[in-house]
C-alpha cells in the first residue's frame, strides 16, 4: 500500500531539497529522456523558472510524440450534492445550508440527453458527494447502466470504495476512476478534512491501490492547489505516487490533475496560496517531461486563454461547458455549484478555439468494444 | 539383472539405488536419480528396490551458464 511508501518520504526534507535545487540540477533533468522524481523536483523548483521556454518546447515535443495533436474531451455530471463530509473548501460542505439533491433515474437520463445536445461527448465523468447510505454503489451502478446507451467511456469521481466495489462497478461499464488526494501532507490533511469519511487520510490514499487491485483501466489523481503553501512538495508526492502505481498496477492508464483554487470574492474559504499562471505552466511542463505518457487534465476551473494555449504544450484532456451542480444541464440549472468555473464557453466554442490552435478535439477516444466485463450485463 | 541407466543397458548386482550409486562410484554431491521419469529423493535410495528392466536417469553437476 502506498501509505507505507509515503511514510518513508519526509515532507520537510523534500521541501528543502526542492528549494536547494541548482541550475545544474535543472539542466541535467532537462537533458534526460527519462527523468526520475529527483529530476522532477528540479523541474518544479524555483531554479527552473528561467528554463520555462525550454521546458515548453520539450513538453510539446513529448506530448506530440505520444498523443499527436489531439485533446480528449470529457464532461462531468454531478448526480448528487448530498455529502456527509465537511471539507473546509468545498461548496458541498455538510453544514452548508443548501438544498440537497439526489437525482432520480429519470432526471439522470434527462441530463444525459441534455449533454448529448451540447456536443458529441462520449467521455462522461459521473460525480457525487459522499453519502454511501443514500447514494452508494447500487445508485452509481444504476447511473452507469443508464449511461451506457449514451456514452462509450464512463468514469466516476466519488468517495473511495472497496476493491470489490470498484470491481462491481466495472461490471456496469465503469472504465475509470478519478479521485483527488487533495494534499499528501498528512500532518495538515485533517485541517482541511476535519470530519466524515474523507477525514481518513490512509483510506483515501490507499484507495488508489484498491483501484489498481480491482483492475480499473484508468486512474486519475490530483492535488488541490491552494491548500498547502508548499505546492511543489505536494505535487512531488503525487509524482512519487504515480511512479509507485505504475510499477504495481502496470496495466492501468493514469491521469493527473492539479486544479488551482481561486480567491473567493464572496467570503468563504480563502486559498492558502495562489499559484500563478507561470507556475501552473512550469508544473505542467515538468509533469510532461517527467512522464511522457500520463494524461494531464485541465478542467473549466482554468481560464479559457490558459486552456487554449496549454492544450498545445502538454495538456491532453479537458472538460468543457461543465456544470458543477447536480442536474445542472437540464433539471436544476440554477442550483448551487461545488466550485466556480472560469472557462464558461460552450463546448462548441471550446472546440473551435482548439481547432484554431491546431489541435483536434477528440470526443471518443476509447470504447469498450472488446471489454467482455463491461458488456456482460448490457 | 539388467536395467537401463540413461538409456544404456547395464548389468548390475545392486538391489537398491543406494547400492547402484556405490557400484558406479558416483560423487557424494551433485547427483540425482529418477526412476521411470520420477525423481527419487536421496533419503529413499536405500529402500528403493531395483527390478529387471527399470529405466533410470542419473544426472550430475556440470559446467554451464
Amino acid at each position, binding site marked *: 500500500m502506498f501509505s507505507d511508501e509515503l511514510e518513508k518520504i519526509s515532507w520537510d526534507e523534500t521541501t528543502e531539497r526542492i528549494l536547494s535545487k541548482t541550475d545544474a540540477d535543472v539542466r541535467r533533468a532537462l537533458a534526460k529522456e527519462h527523468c526520475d522524481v529527483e529530476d522532477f523536483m528540479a523541474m518544479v523548483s524555483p531554479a527552473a523558472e528561467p*528554463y520555462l521556454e525550454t521546458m515548453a518546447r520539450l513538453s510539446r515535443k513529448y506530448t506530440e510524440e505520444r498523443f499527436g495533436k489531439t485533446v480528449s474531451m470529457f464532461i462531468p455530471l454531478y448526480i448528487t450534492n448530498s455529502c456527509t463530509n465537511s471539507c473546509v473548501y468545498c461548496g458541498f460542505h455538510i453544514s452548508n445550508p443548501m438544498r440537497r439533491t439526489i437525482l432520480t433515474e429519470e432526471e439522470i437520463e434527462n441530463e444525459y440527453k441534455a449533454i448529448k445536445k451540447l456536443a458529441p461527448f462520449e467521455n462522461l465523468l459521473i460525480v457525487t458527494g459522499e453519502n454511501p447510505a443514500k447514494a452508494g454503489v447500487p445508485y452509481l451502478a444504476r447511473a452507469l447502466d443508464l449511461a451506457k446507451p449514451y456514452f462509450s467511456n464512463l468514469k466516476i469521481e466519488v468517495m473511495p470504495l472497496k476493491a470489490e466495489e470498484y470491481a462491481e462497478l466495472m461490471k456496469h461499464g465503469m472504465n475509470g476512476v478519478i479521485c483527488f488526494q487533495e494534499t499528501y501532507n498528512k500532518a495538515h490533511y485533517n485541517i482541511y478534512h476535519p470530519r466524515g469519511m474523507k477525514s481518513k487520510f490512509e483510506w483515501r490514499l490507499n484507495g488508489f491501490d484498491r483501484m489498481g487491485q480491482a483492475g480499473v483501466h484508468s486512474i486519475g489523481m490530483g492535488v488541490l492547489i491552494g491548500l498547502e503553501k508548499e505546492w511543489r512538495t505536494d505535487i512531488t508526492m503525487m509524482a512519487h505516487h504515480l511512479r509507485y502505481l505504475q510499477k504495481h498496477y502496470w496495466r492501468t492508464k493514469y491521469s493527473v490533475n492539479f486544479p488551482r483554487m481561486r480567491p473567493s470574492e464572496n467570503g468563504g474559504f480563502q486559498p492558502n496560496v495562489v499559484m500563478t499562471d507561470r507556475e501552473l505552466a512550469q508544473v505542467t511542463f515538468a509533469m510532461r517531461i517527467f512522464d511522457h505518457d500520463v494524461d494531464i487534465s485541465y478542467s473549466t476551473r482554468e481560464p479559457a486563454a490558459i486552456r487554449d494555449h496549454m492544450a498545445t504544450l502538454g495538456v491532453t484532456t479537458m472538460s468543457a461547458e461543465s456544470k458543477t451542480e447536480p442536474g445542472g444541464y437540464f433539471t436544476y440549472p440554477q442550483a448551487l455549484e461545488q466550485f466556480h468555473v472560469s472557462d464558461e464557453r460552450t463546448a462548441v466554442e471550446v472546440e473551435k478555439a482548439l481547432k484554431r490552435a491546431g489541435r483536434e478535439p477528440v470526443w471518443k477516444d476509447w470504447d469498450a468494444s472488446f471489454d467482455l466485463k463491461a458488456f456482460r450485463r448490457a | 539383472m539388467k536395467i537401463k541407466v540413461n538409456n544404456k543397458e547395464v548389468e548390475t548386482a545392486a538391489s537398491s539405488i543406494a547400492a547402484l550409486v556405490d557400484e558406479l562410484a558416483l560423487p557424494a*554431491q551433485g547427483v540425482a536419480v*529418477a526412476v521411470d521419469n520420477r525423481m527419487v529423493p536421496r533419503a529413499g535410495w536405500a529402500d528403493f528396490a531395483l527390478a529387471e528392466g527399470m529405466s533410470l536417469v542419473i*544426472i*550430475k553437476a556440470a559446467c554451464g551458464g
Partner: protein
Amino acid sequence: MEKLVIAGREFTSRLFLGTGKFNSNELMAQAIKASGTEMVTVAMKRIELDDKDDDMLRHVAGPDIQLLPNTSGVRNAEEAVFAAQMAREAFGTNWLKLEIHPDPRYLLPDSTETLKATEQLVKMGFVVLPYCQADPTLCKHLEEAGAATVMPLGAPIGTNKGLQTRDFLRIIIEQANVPVVVDAGIGAPSHAAEAMEMGASACLVNTAIAVAGDPVAMARAFRQAVEAGRMAYEAGLGLQADSFVAEASSPLTAFLNE
C-alpha cells in the same frame, strides 16, 4: 553500495558467474575467486558410465557461494519441472535458473513455456530466476507469477554483442518490483557497466570471462565494471546538458506574460 536482496538472501556482489566454457576447472575456480561473485550457475548432465572426470562442484562450492542450478537442455515446461526436481535433490538448493530454449541454434528462451513453468515451480517452493526475452510485459507476468528476479537477455546468448535490447531493458527496470538481472550477450566490462548504470540489479556473465585471453584478469575487470556501474547509478549520473541554456526569446510561453 546498496546490498542486493533476492528471496531474502543478501548479496554484496552484483556479478553472477556462469561456469561454462572454461579451459579447466582450476581456471574456473580462480576466475570465480577473482570475480568476487556470490552466485554461480551450475548445469546438470547425464552421467556416462565410464566417466571418471573431475567433480566440478568442489571447484565452485564455498560458504559464500549460492549455487544456481540451471535447467539448460529442457525444451518445455514439463521437462523444466522434472529438471528442477532433479536439481533440488542434486544440489540441495531450491534456487533455480529457469531456462527453456527449444531452439538449439540461438538458444532463445521460450516465453510461453517459461511463464508456465514459473507458475508451477513457484507453487512447488522453488526460488525461480527465469532467463527470458527482454519483453517488459512478459517480465511483469513472470513477476506476478512469483519469480524472484527476471533475467532478460541483452543479446542472443554467447554473442558478446552487449545491450542490443537496451530500450526494453530500460522499461523492464523502470517497471520491475523484483531485481532485474541482465543475462546473456554481455561481452565486455563496458556492457556490464552500462547495464548497471541503467539501474540493473546485477549481471550474469559467462562466455566473456571464460573465453577471454586471461579469464582471471577478465573476471577482475568485470567485478570492477559492475561495481563502478552500480556506484554510478546510485550516485546519479550527470549528463552533458550544454544545449539547455535559458532561452531569451519565448515564443511558446509569451502568453503567460500577457
